[in-house]
């Protein structure tokens, strides 16, 4: 257990300063989530500007340069400043509570992770004002384009990602150590909440692949040329003009890049695995199968990277391997989907907002998963690679999957974080707007891509694509309204949200055992954990005890 800090100096108790210097995992978790939501809104606004530009053929609302910057920073932000950190935020808040301990293993390292994230993210946003504007070579920054990119936007992009890599790896170490060593009495591996399992695999995946990204980015920086003291260094690892290989970068990037998708999606799966049983009043169906599939997805995610590179002209045998590996990963994913469905089977379903989002997740993520089968089959990928079909596919996994899971988590754990329940009526309106807006925005993109519309183009001349794009634009603005509703909900809840007890959902995991919000040290005592559902066991024991008393 962590030694409790000595009494802090008085200035650190200030309302503002208290948050600045905090090493409390709950406050850091909330900071992570709040900061990520700010970046989410910024990157969302970038998307809305792009959608405006694409609503009509040959539009001239923003130029090619601005569009390419937006497309790059939107993607980078959503992946590195929203997807990963918001789930790190949930993990920070929840992991110590779920495993019945008082804080993370390294609270100060935890704070360091957060502040690196803030600095890295702020730098990326400010890079719009850099000489030559922000990076404009896509979130994948393929050389030679990214080597040739003029100005300092690309360098700032690399630096920002370096900071985020340090932040993420430090966070991952912290989660792994905490989860491995600090579980409360009785919590064996098979009694650990599924969300904690997902964070453990998330941690290991980050440890395995993030350093590869860092290496690739460092080489990219050197290829662009840097001055180290008196020396000007310019390498050409990825620069074919001097004998390098640009495809090498793609291997390194996607060795990181594909597991990155699972780094984001696995914790989202974890949230769903926590929410569904509570609103179905059942245990999760096939706990061990879900754990095994999480581990399997984590492992296989490191063997599928070249399915992002089917069009670079790899040998057919290699493409065949990566097709089969990519298909293999569909099996554990399917296991999860069927287990979630079976969790609903013969349940007692209530449709509160967290449940609506979870069911929305299930219905949409399946679509994103199924379109992935086309992309895994490499000859088919030759046709649809780098088109709007792919854009639609990954937005179904990353919005339909991750964003819906994040909202499920926010509505579910909000009362634990702040003691007040988010407004259910607004929440349901938000859900339906987001669900409908999302489908209107992204379903047509499948068809645009199939008809030949490539991604990352700032305009198009083919007017037959206009209908799809206009629908997409309208849908995206409906999604924007849904996000505004969430902001309104948060403001209202802060002032006048309903105060609910410690366990409003009658949930099963340890975080609901303590007060809402929890005290600094989390628990005065933690019950001995007898299953994956300690509070369910506790409630049953209480019922039995009361039942014994009644006849007397």
């Amino acid at each position, binding site marked *: 257990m962590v030694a409790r800090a000595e009494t802090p100096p008085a200035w650190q108790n200030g309302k503002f300063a208290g948050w600045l210097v905090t090493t409390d995992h709950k406050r850091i978790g909330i900071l992570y989530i709040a900061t990520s939501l700010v970046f989410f809104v910024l990157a969302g606004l970038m998307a809305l500007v792009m959608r405006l530009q694409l609503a009509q053929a040959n539009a001239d609302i923003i130029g090619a*340069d601005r569009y390419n910057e937006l497309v790059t920073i939107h993607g980078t932000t959503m992946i590195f400043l929203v997807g990963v950190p918001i789930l790190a935020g949930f993990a920070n808040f929840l992991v110590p509570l779920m495993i019945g301990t008082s804080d993370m293993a390294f609270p100060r390292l935890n704070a360091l992770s957060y502040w690196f994230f803030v600095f890295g993210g702020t730098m990326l946003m400010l890079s719009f004002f850099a000489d030559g504007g922000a990076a404009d070579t896509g979130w994948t920054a393929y050389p030679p*384009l990214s080597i040739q990119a003029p100005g300092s936007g690309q360098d700032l992009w690399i630096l920002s990602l370096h900071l985020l890599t340090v932040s993420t790896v430090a966070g991952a170490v912290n989660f792994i150590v905490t989860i491995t060593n600090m579980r409360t009495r009785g919590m064996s591996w098979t009694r650990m909440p599924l969300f904690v399992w997902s964070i453990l695999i998330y941690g290991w995946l980050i440890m395995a692949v993030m350093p590869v990204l860092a290496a690739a980015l460092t080489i990219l920086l050197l290829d662009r040329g840097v001055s180290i003291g008196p020396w000007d260094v310019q390498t050409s690892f990825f620069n074919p003009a001097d004998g390098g290989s640009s495809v090498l970068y793609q291997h390194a990037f996607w060795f990181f890049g594909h597991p990155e998708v699972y780094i984001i999606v696995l914790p989202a799966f974890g949230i769903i695995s926590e929410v569904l049983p509570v609103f179905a009043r059942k245990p999760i169906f096939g706990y061990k*199968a879900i754990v095994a599939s999480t581990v399997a997805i984590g492992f296989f995610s490191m063997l599928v990277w070249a399915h992002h590179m089917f069009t670079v002209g790899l040998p057919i045998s290699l493409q065949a391997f990566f097709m089969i590996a990519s298909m293999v990963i569909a099996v554990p994913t399917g296991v999860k989907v069927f287990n979630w469905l079976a969790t609903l089977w*013969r349940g007692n379903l209530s449709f509160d907002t967290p449940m609506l989002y979870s069911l929305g997740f299930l219905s949409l993520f399946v679509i994103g998963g199924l379109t992935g089968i086309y992309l895994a089959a490499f000859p088919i990928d030759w*046709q649809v690679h780098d088109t709007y079909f792919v854009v639609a596919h990954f937005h179904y996994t990353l919005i339909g999957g991750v964003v819906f899971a994040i909202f499920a988590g926010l509505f579910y754990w909000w009362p634990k974080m702040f003691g007040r329940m988010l407004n259910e009526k607004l929440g349901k309106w938000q859900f339906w707007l987001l669900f409908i807006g999302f489908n209107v925005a992204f379903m047509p993109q*499948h068809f645009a891509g199939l008809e030949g519309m490539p991604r990352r183009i700032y305009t198009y001349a083919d007017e037959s694509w206009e209908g799809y794009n206009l629908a997409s634009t309208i849908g995206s603005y409906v999604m924007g309204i849904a996000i505004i509703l969430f902001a309104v909900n948060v403001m209202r809840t802060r002032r006048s949200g309903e105060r609910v007890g410690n366990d409003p959902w009658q949930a099963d995991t340890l975080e609901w055992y303590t007060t809402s919000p929890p005290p600094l040290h989390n628990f005065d005592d933690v019950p001995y954990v007898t299953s994956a559902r300690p509070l369910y066991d506790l409630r049953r024991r209480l019922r039995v005890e009361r039942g014994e008393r009644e006849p007397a």
Partner: protein
Amino acid sequence: MTSAGSRTRVPRYEPSGTFIEWQSVPFPSFLAQFAPVAPESPNAEGIRDSWLFVSIFVFAIFVLVEGLLVAFIVKYRRQNRPRFEDGAQAHGATKLELAWTASPVVVLFLIAAFVFIELPGVKDIPEAAAGEEQLEIKVTGRQYYWQYEYPNGVIAIDQMRAPAGVPVSLEVTAPDADVIHSWWIPALGGKIDAIPGVTNETWFQAKNEGTYSGQCAELCGLEHARMLASVEVLSSDEFDAWLDERRAEQDAGSGELGQEEWEGVCAKCHGPSGEGGIAPRIAGSPTLTDRDALASIVRSGRGTMPAVGSGWTDEQIAVLLDYLTENPPSGS
């Protein structure tokens, strides 16, 4: 179609041999809609066949999962039960779980098998008829245009011409100092990247005459969106005539290529009449009609302008000069 000249001959078009003839299978129209564009070449056909095969399973799984989801939501909703009453406390069912682990394996096996059966028809260029040569075209992706080189040295920009029915093999590359592009004409098959320092191969064999369009599919810089490509498929006779005519024009230092160069290479950045775009206004500039100055800036670039014409032959410079002298950009 008849053969003409000694260069190419037109074999009769044969559809790729698959063990299921998709055209004869009645597909629901929405399913046919959710598929790549109508194929005009055997490789595109093989891809589309694979797509439709995958679609059968995709739609079946979609209906199964979404159907179960809706059914469970309706059937197991709370109704009059107390809010926190337990549902069935089922922790799992090993046989059921094994079943839904194994059945996707079977489905994926079938899909992989089908892909491998279709693969030769997609990746292998058909054998040319005995004694005949295939047409080989070198495709070079450059910021922001496509340059085609025919076996007889004819050069074209952005619009490729090809004879119907003849297997055309493409050597796709990009200059060492350029960036990655991706060659893609949806009706004529999948895409292949044009990578500096690498030569990739692909092919098509167009069924029908017509113009098939596509565009660069790999983000290659500011004017990526304007890097369009098209393939005009002509009858074999027309194609041979066109190729001879272009050869003669090129030798004479005039003709269509000059216009293609202006529109494909210069105008995308400097504007269709040289009025300026993402690059400065060049209408009226003396460089446009000064042979040495033009050659120097086109071949070596200047400032932020890349060397768009590095490696251009003297002929290519000459036809551009000729075009610009005949048709000076108006600037408006």
